[in-house]
């Protein structure tokens, strides 16, 4: 190719639009450090670049500028990293709190469910005792004092239900006792009245009514005692 021929091709050469053999010929010529071609190549570059204006102008999203600057600015990235770590830490802490709260809630729910299951079993046992024709009922107390009824069935057990028991001190519990004519009292379980002093205690095991003469309630340390440690607050003779 002559110089005038090549002069018409430098933009296309820069764009890679020439056929391979034409491009190879210009490559070879440029390697000779031809000053004429170097100059024309310099002039062709902005012409080729100006073709970018064939693209319709589109405004980039505003976020792109900050994204570009953040990608090249270590300080900004470092700050962002710190913020990210701080944010992540806060999220982890929040997650931990939620997890602990959830675990606590689950434990509380489990305890509540266990208590309800116990109550349900006691109610079933109480119904079983109360529904028997041979169950005997003994009423005790007066309206202003602890009062209620004791239901005894020799085959099914005892139901002790009442109201107006005094409030317990912290770390104390009521304990129900079966009092035989002779020998040591038998524990019939511990119980806690509600805020109004109402209570139900069930002992669903056979009772030797010929031997048990009374039921009694004493205040004991939390968890109960193998034998009464205080004077009973309530004694109900069954005879």
């Amino acid at each position: 190719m002559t110089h005038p021929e090549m002069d018409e091709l430098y933009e296309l050469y820069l764009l890679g639009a020439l056929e391979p053999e034409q491009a190879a010929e210009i490559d070879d010529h440029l390697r000779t450090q031809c000053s004429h071609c170097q100059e024309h190549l310099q002039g062709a570059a902005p012409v080729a670049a100006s073709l970018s204006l064939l693209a319709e102008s589109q405004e980039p999203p505003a976020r792109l500028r900050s994204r570009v600057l953040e990608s090249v600015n270590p300080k900004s990235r470092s700050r962002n990293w710190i913020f990210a770590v701080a944010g992540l830490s806060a999220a982890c802490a929040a997650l931990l709190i939620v997890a602990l709260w959830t675990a606590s809630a689950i434990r509380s729910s489990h305890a509540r469910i266990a208590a309800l299951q116990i109550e349900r079993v006691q109610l079933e046992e109480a119904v079983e005792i109360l529904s028997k024709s041979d169950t005997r009922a003994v009423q005790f107390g007066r309206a202003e004092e602890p009062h209620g009824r004791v239901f005894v069935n020799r085959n099914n057990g005892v139901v002790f239900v009442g109201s107006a028991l005094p409030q317990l001190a912290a770390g104390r519990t009521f304990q129900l006792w079966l009092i035989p004519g002779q020998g040591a009292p038998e524990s019939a379980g511990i119980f806690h009245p509600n805020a109004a002093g109402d209570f139900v205690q069930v002992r669903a095991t056979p009772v030797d009514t010929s031997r048990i003469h009374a039921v009694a309630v004493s205040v004991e340390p939390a968890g109960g005692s193998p034998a009464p440690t205080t004077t009973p607050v309530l004694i109900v003779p069954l005879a």
Partner: protein
Amino acid sequence: MHSEQTSDSELVDKLRARDPDAIATLYDRYGCLVYSLFLKVTQDRTVAEDLVQELFLRVWNRGGNFDANKGTLGVWILSITRNFAIDHIRSAQARFQTRLRSIEQTDPLSFSYKPAEPERILDSERSVRQALSELTANQRRVLEMAYFEGFSQSEIAAKLQEPLGTVKSWMRSALIRLRSTVKAGVAG
């Protein structure tokens, strides 16, 4: 907005000093043009944004080596942009990291030309747009196929089902018009 008066040599000095303000200035100057070009080629705003970020990251990492006495950052950046875009559409792979050629491969001659007044290329944007708008539909079409799609003259002729001589004629006449406009802008 960063100063439009900052020269290429000052920007290159800032790039060498790892001053992010240089990228802010370059983005403000060329961000819209670069984004428009990527969007035109990729037809995908998300990909165009990714490519813009990658482009300026490369300028940040390599721009310090640019010799402002031998060319303009604007032409160099637009040249890289166009080749990035062409690489994107030619690549069968999804991720652009593997598609992009190195700057040296992308624009091997960008350091060797020296327009009379380096900052004037985009100053003539209005007259260039005017010149482009006055091209015939065929002239414009063949230039777009070469610039945005990376086709050679023979490929364009085949796709348009036109004689190769006709395509060359359209291109030549369009480039003559454009050359005179760009040179007038540089000289003016």
